[in-house]
């Protein structure tokens, strides 16, 4: 039997419960602010439902625009959480402990917006169920439906499992609504058996979630790559998209971490070292991203298939040159120059790099989706796409709503995993010592 004391957080970790238990006025104002954008998006969507997709800037032949860009972007971000946290967990990266939760929440929440973006894009959202009623398994979109549902389920479980001990803490504290915590707490008593079971489950999920996550963005890329359209029909799109996804995912995570660190005064938990480490990861991803992008464009250029080249040049020097080169600067030049040097790999530096990467990655999705469509193989009327307020409104609204929901989450659950931090402090340190020791040659006892 453990004592209550054992279950209670360390006094120094009380801080982590604070956002859940007390709310500052500014929170509401910020929340209302975000909700205002939600309302705009909702209104825009009602308009779209009433009149049809004509209210967007889409046309012939640019049939996809902001919504599908958002879809790819949001699904990409979702790799922040589950995938990164799983990899870090499996690698026993101890610095992960205070950031995994923040990451996993991103995944689960943002997936809804990814899926939501597709629904926004449908001409007949009311017929969505047709996807289940008469599925066509040859369609990459259906593969998406499958992989995203699995990913959503797995990520939710993966978010929930490590949450249980913390919910129990809240429950025992009598946080309200009590029914919620009692219900979600699942009678967690932190018994040894429970703990062992939980750790095993988390480990299994961590292993499972990685291939699922990779499959998700691979399949998203295949939505494009499976067509024969110029500069979509590419075999490296799978890994290219996954790399991009992780890239933007890490960047989002850094931004979110910086925000909660500031807002909830978690400087002790989210330390420069976390930003430094994630910054290094981001740097690696930036280089990888560059490698893939380079490979992708070089092969296109070298192959010189005329229909591909039209799209190629429209990005490099034509109508889409501005977004393309901004993308290049924000995805590569800025992050690499900031992150490569220790001096600039500060919290501010990584945050700037991350914001830049997020902008860049959104633009990357845009410059993948739109230029190809606007230069069809047959000399059709050249479509010029520019979004209307409806698309902008829904896009911004999605972003705002995401942040609102994220805020809401922090009001119900500790955003830094209390028990894991505790566990780290109590068990991991000796464990690490043992582990590190195990890497080294046996300490030989000099023979007498």
């Amino acid at each position, binding site marked *: 039997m453990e004592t209550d004391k054992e279950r209670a957080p360390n006094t120094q970790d009380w801080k982590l419960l604070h956002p859940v238990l007390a709310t500052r006025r500014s929170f509401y104002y910020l929340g209302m602010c975000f909700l205002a954008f939600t309302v705009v998006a909702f209104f825009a969507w009602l308009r779209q439902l009433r009149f*049809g997709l004509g209210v967007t800037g889409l046309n012939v032949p640019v049939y996809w625009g902001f919504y599908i860009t958002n879809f790819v972007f949001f699904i990409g971000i979702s790799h922040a959480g589950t995938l990164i946290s799983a990899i870090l967990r499996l690698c026993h990266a101890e610095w992960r402990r205070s950031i995994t939760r923040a990451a996993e929440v991103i995944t689960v929440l943002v997936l809804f917006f990814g899926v939501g973006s597709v629904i926004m894009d*449908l*001409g007949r959202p009311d017929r969505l169920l047709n996807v289940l009623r008469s599925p066509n398994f040859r*369609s990459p*979109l259906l593969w998406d439906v499958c992989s995203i549902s699995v990913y959503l389920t797995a990520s939710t479980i993966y978010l929930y499992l490590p949450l249980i001990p913390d919910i129990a803490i809240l429950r025992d504290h009598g946080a309200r609504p009590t029914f919620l915590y009692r219900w979600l707490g699942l009678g967690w008593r932190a018994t040894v058996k429970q703990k062992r079971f939980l750790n095993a489950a988390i480990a299994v999920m961590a292993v499972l979630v990685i291939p699922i996550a990779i499959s998700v963005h691979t399949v998203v890329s295949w939505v494009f790559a499976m*067509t*024969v359209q110029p500069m979509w029909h590419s075999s490296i799109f799978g890994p290219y998209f996954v790399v991009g996804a992780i890239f933007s995912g890490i960047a989002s995570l850094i931004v979110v971490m910086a925000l909660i660190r500031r807002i909830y005064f978690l400087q002790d938990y989210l330390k420069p070292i976390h930003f430094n480490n994630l910054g290094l990861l981001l740097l690696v991803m930036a280089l990888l991203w560059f490698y893939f992008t380079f490979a992708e464009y070089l092969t296109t250029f070298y192959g010189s298939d005329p229909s591909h080249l039209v799209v190629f040049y429209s990005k490099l020097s034509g109508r889409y040159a501005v977004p393309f080169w901004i993308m290049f600067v924000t995805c590569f030049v800025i992050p690499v120059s900031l992150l490569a040097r220790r001096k600039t790999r500060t919290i501010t530096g990584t945050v700037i790099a991350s914001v830049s990467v997020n902008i860049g990655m959104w633009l990357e999705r845009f410059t993948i989706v739109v230029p190809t469509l606007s230069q069809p193989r*047959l*000399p059709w009327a050249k479509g010029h796409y520019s979004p209307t307020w409806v698309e902008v409104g829904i896009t911004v609204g999605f972003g705002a709503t995401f942040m609102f929901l994220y805020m809401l989450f922090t009001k119900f659950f500790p955003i830094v995993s209390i028990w894991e931090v505790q566990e780290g402090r109590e068990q991991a340190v000796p464990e690490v010592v043992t582990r590190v020791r195990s890497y080294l040659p046996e300490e030989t006892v000099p023979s007498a």
Partner: protein
Amino acid sequence: MPRWGMVIDLAKCTACQACVVACQTENNVPCVPPEQAARGRIISWISVLPQLEGEYPRLTMRPTPLPCVHCDNPPCIRVCPVGATGINPEGVVRQIFARCIGCRYCTNACPYTRRMFNWYRPEFPGEFTEALNPDVSVRPKGVVEKCTLCHHRLQKARDQARAQNRELAEGDYIPACVEICPAGAMYFGDLDDPNSTVATLARGRRAFRLLEELGTKPKVIYLAQGEWSGGDGQGART
């Protein structure tokens, strides 16, 4: 079983676009208002693409009437998540308007840009509704539509042939665009019947298909322009 196909003789086509309007009136294709047209949202199941090349005064234009080419291996139908489009045993790539969720994946997968989307509810101002063809439904907003090879005409032709107790003969079933063409530049029929006009023409030396290299196997076949080969002014040739 027939495999319906079309042959378009580019040497004869005058780029008049009667086929375009004939298709629109036959298939209840709405006219989008001018602001929408300016945004590139005109719906036409068949369009005449100008294909202009060169510089003044050495220019070529190959106006190409382009309906859905009814690929035998259509990239558009594979990608549809709900199976709202498919190819029937006679090779017609059809669209189930009532099932389409409007994702526009097919429109993007079609290398010929031959699928059209209803951005708005179709409007038929004033009494234009009176001219609607009862054999063809009016598509609601939010779904994709495309050339059906005037499939309703096949059904009528079949019914008629059956009523007269005979087989469907060549010329019984002719799509609206082919029927109207003032230059007689379009031919229609069974590509699998080696004696049909279309099959004969499709075997000819001038025959080619658009974007053949993509392996889509179109069933709309073009006959190349060809050139004048008369006296060249340098003296008679024999």
